[in-house]
């Protein structure tokens, strides 16, 4: 392969793409997977109302089939990954001086993963325009298979859950129709073969998100939230449109007989092998980043995501936690060659993507502290965790990011569905005024919520721990006891990640306390939800516990080598279309430190809520809502902490009085304020200004100026006619007078001139 790239003298060069057309039946026919939910969408839409269960059975059946198909595809892929030795397809290139950059593409060594993994590509012509063939097809490889599994599983569970949760809703059937459409579009997105197809499904999932957020559109707030989500995403999509366009023409320059290519593998292969100019890639990556920021709720385009909680809770779990919002992360992972080269991720210590991700993760975590609404806590937490993933991709920890996406889908879906279960029984999402003490009445929900929270907080051996730790190691910023050898030394990102870990642990503790401990502050008699709600919860909870074992770190001494890094082995592509990235070595010291950080976060929050607040509320006999959250309470609480050792007191003071308070009150408050007042306001102002400009423009320029011209020309001709009309008196003699006068004048002129 290197020979071919180096052969600049020959007229045609080619580049290995790392794909093949052969493979197992399941890998070849992955197109069935999005098709089946699409059919079920049509079926539910037209016949749903006539079916005994309002179309839900159709949706569940479709999802069950595609779930099984995805599992089969997964196993087929594992077999393919290890045992396939077929022909690899190469892309012919226009030879040019660029060929000398071929030293990048050292495809001979494939890191620790050994053998290349050949993705299975299957395409068909979609349409031809301008002589260019646009194809539609499937690209089945590690990340695609992983996403297929996640999407179908979570979607299936959400379907089952929803049969209870939205039972009796007046738009029950439409709800399931859109769930099907969403599943279909999301599945299409993950197996997209080209960026055009990606763009199409990207917008389709946005549409479903819009429709489902606005499910209860009778209330203005809900439809506002839906509009906000769609429009914010549309702003990001501008970036996607432009980025995709740039990549289309950039890769077209290298391909003979074609002026563009949307193919993901070709674009990636060209980018990873250094054949595309760096500046082009940088611009394209920045544009695509805008799309990621809106879709995956990255700072500062994240404001739609908390609002999107206006939709039904199963939707929040499926779309706004587990699947759609990770589309941005997935897109980065898909076009990683572009981002890796564009942002120069390897060997650097900071870049735009890592910075955005890191910042988002902090901002999101801080905001989660001040929420009363349990779903908003989870929404900000999602933002924070998405920031984690983007940061991971930004530092080059590709596998870690994908793994975190994988585990996060389970525990966050579990938490969301748990919050839905709670809300289903107390009819409110307000933790402070309507919840508390629910652990006794809702034991199943409580247990699964706790499992999800621990997994999110990242305590070993729950799933979140493994993926989070891998990201922290992947930053390569850990210098103690031997570094971790990442793609660069992103120490700054490591610190941000650590802080977030502590914050996450703390706010989840707060959330758990407010929901499940203390006295019940709501009205009515809450009860445990039915099996259709609790069974999905338990399935997700089990996954939240065990999913982490799928990617035990390399060199983890407690298990045999064959069980290490299974996830990375099967998911991470080792192929021409994937850049050469370094893999961090796991570090015991880092794992221990991060665990300590998490425990510290939990214990601080525990200390405050479970001990102090609990005690204060018991002593004063007030329920939590009336507890002043201000300075005095906390000072008294702090005074009670005097009994502790002086040393500990100072620490306590430092944490509770200064750090926690600073974070809780001014910083988070400020962040939240600025979020609401500045960012949110800006979005609103944009809209309002646009309307105002439109109005002004319409009233002043369009109606007066532009239209005025048109009217004026008409008026002039009519006015002049009005004047001339007076001459026409109808009297023969006056006409004759004019005639003779004119004749006289003409005669006079004739004499004068001649």
């Amino acid at each position: 392969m290197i020979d071919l790239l180096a052969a600049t003298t020959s007229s045609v060069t080619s580049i290995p793409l790392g794909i093949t057309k052969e493979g197992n039946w399941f890998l070849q026919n992955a197109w069935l997977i999005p098709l089946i939910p699409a059919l079920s969408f049509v079926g539910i839409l037209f016949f749903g109302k006539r079916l005994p269960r309002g179309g839900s059975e159709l949706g569940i059946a479709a999802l069950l089939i595609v779930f099984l198909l995805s599992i089969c595809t997964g196993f087929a892929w594992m077999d393919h990954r290890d045992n396939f030795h077929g022909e690899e397809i190469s892309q012919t290139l226009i030879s040019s001086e660029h060929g000398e950059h071929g030293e990048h593409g050292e495809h001979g060594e494939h890191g620790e993963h050994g053998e290349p993994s050949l993705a299975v590509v299957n395409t068909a012509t979609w349409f031809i325009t301008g002589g260019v063939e646009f194809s539609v097809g499937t690209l089945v490889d590690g990340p695609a298979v992983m996403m297929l599994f996640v999407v179908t599983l979570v979607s299936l569970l959400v379907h089952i859950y929803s049969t209870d949760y939205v039972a009796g809703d007046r738009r029950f059937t439409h709800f399931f129709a859109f769930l099907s459409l969403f599943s279909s579009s999301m599945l299409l997105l993950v197996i997209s073969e080209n960026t055009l197809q990606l763009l199409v499904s990207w917008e389709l999932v946005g549409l479903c998100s819009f429709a489902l957020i606005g499910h209860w559109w009778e209330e203005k707030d809900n439809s506002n939230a839906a509009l906000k989500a769609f429009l914010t995403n549309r702003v990001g999509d501008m970036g996607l449109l432009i980025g995709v366009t740039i990549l289309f023409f950039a890769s077209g320059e290298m391909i003979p007989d074609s002026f563009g290519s949307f193919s993901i593998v070709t674009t990636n292969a060209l980018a990873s092998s250094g054949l595309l100019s760096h500046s082009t890639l940088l611009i394209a990556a920045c544009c695509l980043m805008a799309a990621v920021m809106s879709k995956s709720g990255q700072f500062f385009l994240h404001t739609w995501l908390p609002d999107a909680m206006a939709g039904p809770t199963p939707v929040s779990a499926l779309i706004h936690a587990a699947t759609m919002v990770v589309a941005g992360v997935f897109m980065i992972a898909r076009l990683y060659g572009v981002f890796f080269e564009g942002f120069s991720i390897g060997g650097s210590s900071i870049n735009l993507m890592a910075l955005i991700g890191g910042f988002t993760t902090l901002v999101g975590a801080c905001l989660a502290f001040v929420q009363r609404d349990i779903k908003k806590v989870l929404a900000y937490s999602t933002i924070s965790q998405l920031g984690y993933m983007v940061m991971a991709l930004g530092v080059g920890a590709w596998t870690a990011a994908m793994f975190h996406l994988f585990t996060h889908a389970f525990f966050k879906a579990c938490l969301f569905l748990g919050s839905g279960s709670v809300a289903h029984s107390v009819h409110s999402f307000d933790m402070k005024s309507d919840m508390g003490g629910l652990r006794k009445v809702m034991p199943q929900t409580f247990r699964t919520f706790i499992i999800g929270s621990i997994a999110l907080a990242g305590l070993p051996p729950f799933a979140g721990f493994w993926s989070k730790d891998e990201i922290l190691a992947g930053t390569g910023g850990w210098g103690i006891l031997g570094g971790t050898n990442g793609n660069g030394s992103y120490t700054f990102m490591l610190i941000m990640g650590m802080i977030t870990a502590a914050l996450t642990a703390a706010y989840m503790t707060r959330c758990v306390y407010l929901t499940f401990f203390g006295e019940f502050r709501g009205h009515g008699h809450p009860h445990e939800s039915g099996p259709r709600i609790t069974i999905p919860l338990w399935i997700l909870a089990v996954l939240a516990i065990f999913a982490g074992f799928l990617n035990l770190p390399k060199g983890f001494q407690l298990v045999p080598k064959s069980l290490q890094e299974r996830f990375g082995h099967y998911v991470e592509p080792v192929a021409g279309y994937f850049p050469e990235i370094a893999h961090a070595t796991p570090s015991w010291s880092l794992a221990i430190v991060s665990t300590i950080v998490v425990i510290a976060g939990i214990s601080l929050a525990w200390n405050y809520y479970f001990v102090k607040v609990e005690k204060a509320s018991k002593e004063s006999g007030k329920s939590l809502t009336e507890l002043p959250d201000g300075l005095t309470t906390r000072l008294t609480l702090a005074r009670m902490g005097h009994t502790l050792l002086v040393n500990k007191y100072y620490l306590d003071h430092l944490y509770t009085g200064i750090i926690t308070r600073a974070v809780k009150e001014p910083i988070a408050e400020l962040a939240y304020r600025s979020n609401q007042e500045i960012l949110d306001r800006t979005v609103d102002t944009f809209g309002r200004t646009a309307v105002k400009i439109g109005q002004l423009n319409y009233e002043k320029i369009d109606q007066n100026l532009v239209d005025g011209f048109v009217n004026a020309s008409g008026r002039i001709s009519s006015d002049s006619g009005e004047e001339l009309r007076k001459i026409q008196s109808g009297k023969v003699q006056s006409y004759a007078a004019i005639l003779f006068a004119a004749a006289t004048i003409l005669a006079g002129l004739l004499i004068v001139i001649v």
Partner: protein
Amino acid sequence: MDNLLDSWGLTVATFSPLVGALVMFLIPKEKEYEHKIIALITSLWVAFVGLMLLIWFDLDATEKLQYVVDKSWIDAIHSRYVVGLDGISLPLLLLTVLIVPLCIVYSWNHFPDPKNPKTFLILILVLETGMIGTFVAQDMVLFFVFFEVVLLPMFFMIAVWGGPNRKYASLKFFLYTLFGSALMLVSFLSLFFLTGAESFVFSEIADNVVANAVSRTAQLWIFGGMFLGFGIKVPMFPFHTWLPDAHTEAPTVGSVILAAVLLKLGTYGFVRIAIPLLPDAAVEWAPWIGLLAVIGIIYGAFCCLAQTDMKRLIAFSSVAHMGFVMLGISTLTDFGINAAIMGMVAHGLITGMLFFLAGSMKERYHTLEIKRLGGLLVQAPKMGWVLGFCAMASLGLPGLAGFWGEFPAILSAYNPANGLPVEIFRTFMVIAALGTVLAAGYLLWLLQRSAFGTPKEEFAEDPNIHDATKTEWVAWAPLLALILAIGIYPNLVFRATDAAVDASLTPCLTIDVDELTHEEIESVHCSEVYGLGNHDSDHHTASKG
């Protein structure tokens, strides 16, 4: 069958409506039912002929004119009766023959005041003749005649069956477009005399433009005249002001035909006449066309945001959408022009559908003032869904037709034809992309205000507000199905247009960038390339067959 179609197909399609109109002319006004039936049968017959034309159309040679008829017509002015159909006209012809029967079905039971179905239907049929004729004419004079035939029925439709301000609107429409046509005619004539061509047939003129080396300045001026004529019809910013008035006042069916077909006459003129005949001038004009196109996109969107009347809002959205079409045309790449034709078809279907909806809503609410509407989804859920569907299609959601007009246009602006300023067009691309955001803004806002929420008090108990009726469904279903079908499989349109567009662009504009090195591209001046590629003019002679 084949032969009959070859020699008579287009002529029959063009003049059948006129025959139908004549028959109706002889039947007394009171026999309304007979009138409706005759009009429907005529339009269905034309649609059937259109379908036959599609079936026998050789899709592997869309760049060739097919079903060509070449007969002498007015020898005194060297004008011939030449009609033909190629891949560019085919989609638009089909769009026309589809829309007209749907309009007749839609107005079956609700003719706008002052009723009089006889005249109304006769006008629609005359319109159809004009529209079909324009799309198949291959002779400048013939084209001009059909182009003008369209004006009068539309004028009467607005002036008689229109809204309260109909006199103003109809006059404005008529005069404005007539003004453009006058300049267009002057351009045609000067082109004819300057080239010294033997006839007004397009291919003949095109050959003579090359052979007789019409001076660059003259070409620029002539293109300018055509630009005005077609640009007003499109309508391009800043010549668009007739459009909102005409649309607001026109009866529903009038608006639908206006949006679906009439606006396309302008863009079709660019694609069929202005650019292939005067490629050098097109290159000079293209950046300006592009500029006006993107201004139109943004400007139209802002105007939409300010509207309080639903129909007017949709009218302004036409300005924005036709901006995308013109942007595609201004790139002068086959890619962009394909996108433009797709955009025309998509806009015809989607905006036509939106006007149908607006008409039906007006019938129920007796107002289209947005702030009085609301809760359509509650009172007429199916109509609400259709409105949502159309709004999504109109804002360019992938998977529906609108997207394939917008996205490729944006795409093509990144890489315009050689000789065009790349940086400027890339700026246009970014602005146009911004336009998609604004489009989503105004359409969703409209959707929110009219369909979401609960019905306003004044209409809450109104028994007049019911869901879509059967005739409405019959009229709408084909449009909705096509919007979806083209959205999923855009090749339905691209299949026909691709080769034809490729051939209609002159060699100058279709040289393969990949075959030239960078220096060559820079050094090659467009007209030189044109001169070199001169011998390759097969497509000009094709019409003689």
